């Protein structure tokens, strides 16, 4: 999954989508996950990094990650991968 081009995230957690003019506010975990996604890491790599650093179980993170991705999709911030037939 890829973050849309041109989307900039500042350290304050302010995210602007220049294509739509919409802006968002992220918490620090949100910034972290988005940055890892931007680096091209896949879910398994992100999960490993986060669960190693933070006190969270794989299942909890999995659930929260999916919820987060759902919001990114809902707000058109990620390129939705075409479902393979």
């Amino acid at each position, binding site marked *: 999954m890829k973050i849309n081009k041109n989307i900039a995230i*500042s350290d*304050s*957690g*302010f995210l*602007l989508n220049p294509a739509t003019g919409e*802006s968002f*506010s992220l918490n620090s975990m949100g910034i972290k996950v988005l940055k890892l996604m931007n680096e091209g890491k896949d879910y398994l790599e992100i999960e490993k990094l986060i669960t190693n650093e933070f006190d969270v179980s794989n299942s909890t993170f999995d659930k929260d990650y999916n919820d987060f991705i759902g919001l990114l999709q809902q707000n058109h911030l990620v390129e939705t991968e075409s479902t393979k037939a």
Partner: protein
Amino acid sequence: MARKLKIAVSGLNAIDSPGPGVAVARGLKEAKSFDSSIIGLSYESLEPGIYLHDLIHKSYQIPYPSVGTETLLERIKYIHSIENIDVIIPNFDAELYSFMKLTSELAAMGINTFLPTIEQFEERHKINLNTFGEKYDIKVPKSKAIMDAGEIYSLHEEFAYPLVVKGKYYDAYIAHNPQQAATFFYKISSKWGLPIIIQQFIKGNEYNVTGLGDGNGNMIAAVPMRKQYITDKGKAWGGISINDEKMLELTQHFLSSTKWRGPFELELMKDAEGDFYLMEINPRMPAWIYLAVGVGQNIPEAIVNLALGEDVKAFKTFLTSKMFIRYSWDMIVDIKEFEQIASYGEL
């Protein structure tokens, strides 16, 4: 060398239903008795005043009144620690209660205010207008608070149609028959709750006075205005200062009988006989306050001096037949500024 004061002002929402903050800041900038730097207090990130840097030196977001005075006080302590505020002028009806509650805490921090008392603030509420009129011998439209739609069908014993159906805080509709009144009753009560206020309909022209009372019954300032251009939200987009002795007498009577403290706006209706009815008392400056400054009564400046405990001489005159014509102005703002206020609450 004039004194240098830090003055915090809210109501920076210079939008189509505007708060008076930007106009107040203009008045303060033009004050002769002091130099000021203005601190903006905002609730939302897109209040235009936040971005008017020539007028407003720096803006801080503050918590909504619904969060409670404890949180508001914390936030003001923080702002005060950076800015060292001399005077706060709150400009929203909805926030006044909180600031009145905090008056002594603010004073202890060295922040001065000049606000109505809680009793004055409560007494002038729409629901209490009848009692207010009786107590101070001021003509008000007859009104009655009702709690039950069933009461509408006996209103004809006391009121003649058409009558006005009003919400506790906002909304007003003219009803020509009980069926309409009942419809408005449900419409308004579902939004603003009970009671609903039934008010005699006064046919006539609307006039306004803004002014300032010193709390001892003296009239420090008063400027009557007639709206000339009214937006679809009922706001004046243009108006003219008028010399109406009757309105000034009524204002003087209002002040000497209530000993009103602070700024106010009286909304008046003049009927066919030329009698004025008091429709509403707003316990703050109106959005058109700059007209008062422009015709020679700098009310914002006088408020600051009263707040600082100084003797303020009453304004004796003002220029009549001066108009204010409002215009809107598009600023070009970088998203960085918006980010700054939205993410950090300061700009």
